[in-house]
């Protein structure tokens, strides 16, 4: 992973080291599932290598198929549901290629926030930026789909 992960921007090198020390490295083979929709979210993941596919189930010709929602690569975060109630994953994450992630337990991270409020605040702001960016992206995608639906039905 080149540079600081998006979640740890603004942290001092010492703070970054402390946060990274909370996690453990995990290697995922291509196609391996990192977490599943609806399960308990107790771990946050920083992608350090490879690509992670986030999917949602969709009915296609009567069959349930996992459809790509977005893709995360090195430096990006997946599983931020581990930091926000109700602590349940709302997507399924799978490795697209052989990948490596740093798994940070949500409890350990919250304890670190309590001990280092400044770092906690910076990480929370970074997390808000990640969530906000996803919200804006999906607002635009949703509007484009609605626009097409209206065009098709009311033309």
């Amino acid at each position, binding site marked *: 992973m080149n540079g600081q992960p998006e979640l740890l921007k603004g942290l001092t090198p010492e703070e970054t080291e402390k946060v990274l020390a909370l996690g453990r490295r995990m290697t995922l083979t291509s196609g391996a599932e990192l977490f599943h929709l609806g399960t308990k979210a107790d771990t946050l993941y920083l992608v350090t290598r490879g690509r992670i596919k986030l999917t949602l189930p*969709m009915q*296609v*010709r009567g*069959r349930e*198929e996992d*459809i*790509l*929602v*977005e893709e995360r690569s090195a430096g990006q975060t997946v599983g931020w549901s581990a930091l926000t109630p109700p602590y349940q994953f709302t997507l399924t994450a799978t490795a697209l290629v052989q990948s490596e992630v740093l798994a940070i337990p949500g409890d350990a991270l919250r304890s670190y926030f309590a001990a280092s409020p400044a770092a906690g605040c910076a990480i929370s702001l970074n997390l808000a930026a990640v969530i906000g*960016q996803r919200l*804006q*992206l*999906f607002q*635009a*995608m949703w*509007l*484009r*789909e609605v*626009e*097409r639906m209206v065009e098709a039905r009311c033309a």
Partner: protein
Amino acid sequence: MEMLLMGACISVFGLAVACLAFGAATRTEERSPALQPQPQPAVAKAAAKARFFVDAVRIAPPARPRVPIEALLLQIENHVRLEQAAAESFLQAPTPALLHSRTISPLVN
């Protein structure tokens, strides 16, 4: 007496004319429902024909090539990627033109 007979004759003649008129009127009324069934089969035929053609169109929709499920899933994935790229372009420079920009996704073209 002659006058009385003449009056009776005129009355009988008037009655006969009235009967004929009534008969004619009644025949006309009776004849019209009798005539109505003739156009009815034509209408029914027309209706039956119209329904036949409508049903035929509904039963046989224009033949569309059925894409294999694997190809369809790839198309959906490709569509999502293209849409995401278009949405990202909009977020980098928010303008109505970029928001409404078209992609080359086969699912929307």
